[in-house]
């Protein structure tokens, strides 16, 4: 479980996140939704420590991440997997080397055990015959799958996905959504997904945070979202429904 309390983040004296609080639960696909530029990516970057926060607390199962020392932060980092918007695969490494990278850096597994783990992760994302291919040789959907496989290589407790569907066709988007949901439930991961895709919201929305101009306006789930009574959220939803 990740709990964030009263997070503030500014760039050049302009607040991009203001007093954001939320709870992201284990074994659930927790969505953060909002229009482009609302602050979803910044929030995620703050959570994983790529950006520092001005104020507030980020609690990874009660460990105050922002205030941990370098080594203690590293321990938490080992438990984090992240899927980037553009997948962010290492260009110079093949698919299996990408997935094996965290293992090579951080695990004490032998070569053959690493290979088993790599194949297991690639199987989880239904990508079994592309081990030797390079990122430039595979499609956008495949890149995202490799990105997921790499993110789960070290058995993470926490999985972050920044717009997993952006740039994908609707069919591939559903496949990726399903994958993330399955992995989350099977391995009981705390998953956080940034999205502005309504289909994702309806399919995966066990828990939804709506963020608009850096402020958290509403939290709930996909059953309640249509009747939130929140004007900002209704405007956001209308844009997709009509």
């Amino acid at each position: 479980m990740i709990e964030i309390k009263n997070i503030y983040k500014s760039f050049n004296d302009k607040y991009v996140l203001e007093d954001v609080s939320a709870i992201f639960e284990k074994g659930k696909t927790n969505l953060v939704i909002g229009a482009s530029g609302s602050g979803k990516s910044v929030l995620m970057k703050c959570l994983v420590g790529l950006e520092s926060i001005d104020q507030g607390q980020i609690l990874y199962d009660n460990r105050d991440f922002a205030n941990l020392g370098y080594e203690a932060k590293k321990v938490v980092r080992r438990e984090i997997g992240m899927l980037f918007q553009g997948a962010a695969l290492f260009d110079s490494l093949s698919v299996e080397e990408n997935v094996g990278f965290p293992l090579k850096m951080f695990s004490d597994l032998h070569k053959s055990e690493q290979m088993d783990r790599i194949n297991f992760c690639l199987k989880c994302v239904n990508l079994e015959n592309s081990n030797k291919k390079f990122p430039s040789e595979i499609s956008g959907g495949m890149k995202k799958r490799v990105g997921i496989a790499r993110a789960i290589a070290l058995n993470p407790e926490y999985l972050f996905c920044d717009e997993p569907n952006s740039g994908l066709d609707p069919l591939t988007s559903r496949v990726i959504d399903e994958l993330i949901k399955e992995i989350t439930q099977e391995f009981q991961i705390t998953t956080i997904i940034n999205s502005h895709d309504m289909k994702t919201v309806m399919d995966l929305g066990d828990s939804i945070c709506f963020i608009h101009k850096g402020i958290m306006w509403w939290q709930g789930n996909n059953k309640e979202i249509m009747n939130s009574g929140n004007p900002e959220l209704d405007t956001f939803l209308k844009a997709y429904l009509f």
Partner: protein
Amino acid sequence: MSLFTSIGRYTLFVRGLISKPERFSVFWERTLHEMTAIGVGSLGIVAAISLSVGAVTTVQTAYQLITGLVPRSIISTILRDSTILELAPTITCLVLAGKVGANIASELGNMSVSEQIDALDVMGVNSASYLVLPKIVAGLFVIPLLIIIAMTLGIIGGYWAGVMGGAISPRDFSEGILNDFRGFTVVFSFIKSITFAFIITSISSFHGYYTRGGALEVGRSSTKAVVYSCVGILFSDFILAQMLLEN
């Protein structure tokens, strides 16, 4: 950004690189890879340039010494000293700044704008040290070797042009090469090449690593990497000559 902020950020960047590698085997593997990329990849251009610079130096020196009052062997002595002291290290490194520097900056720049560096950081890898340190270490090993090759080929190029063009006999040439040879010139040249190697790899890495934006900025970073590496080389060339070549 002002010059002083840049220099400050560059200094912090270099200081941040000095950390224990996560996995020594990985560090070593990457260093070997970079050595091949820098060394083998640059051999052709270094050879071509040093042969022709040596040849041109000989022909021009011969032309300026046409009087006949000085012994012909002076031509190869001048070729030897200018090649070892200045032409081999400085010209080779200016060319390497263009080739290796642009390469490093665009590789790191692309990794930065496509969030690959963020991906490393999220995993808890010290991205600057993981990516940049092997490049610098590889450069410090390989570039001095390239300079030694450049020296040798420069003198061979000079011999070829001088003897074939009839400006100097093979006998005079070898006499001039051996005449009053000071080993310190080679040491000086070695110090220069190590300094230049550090300048090229670290400045280019700095500009690549801090690239933000997209493809356009990656191009800009490469240009900056080359320009600032060249300026750094010429500036330190002067400083080193002042410091070490007194008397």
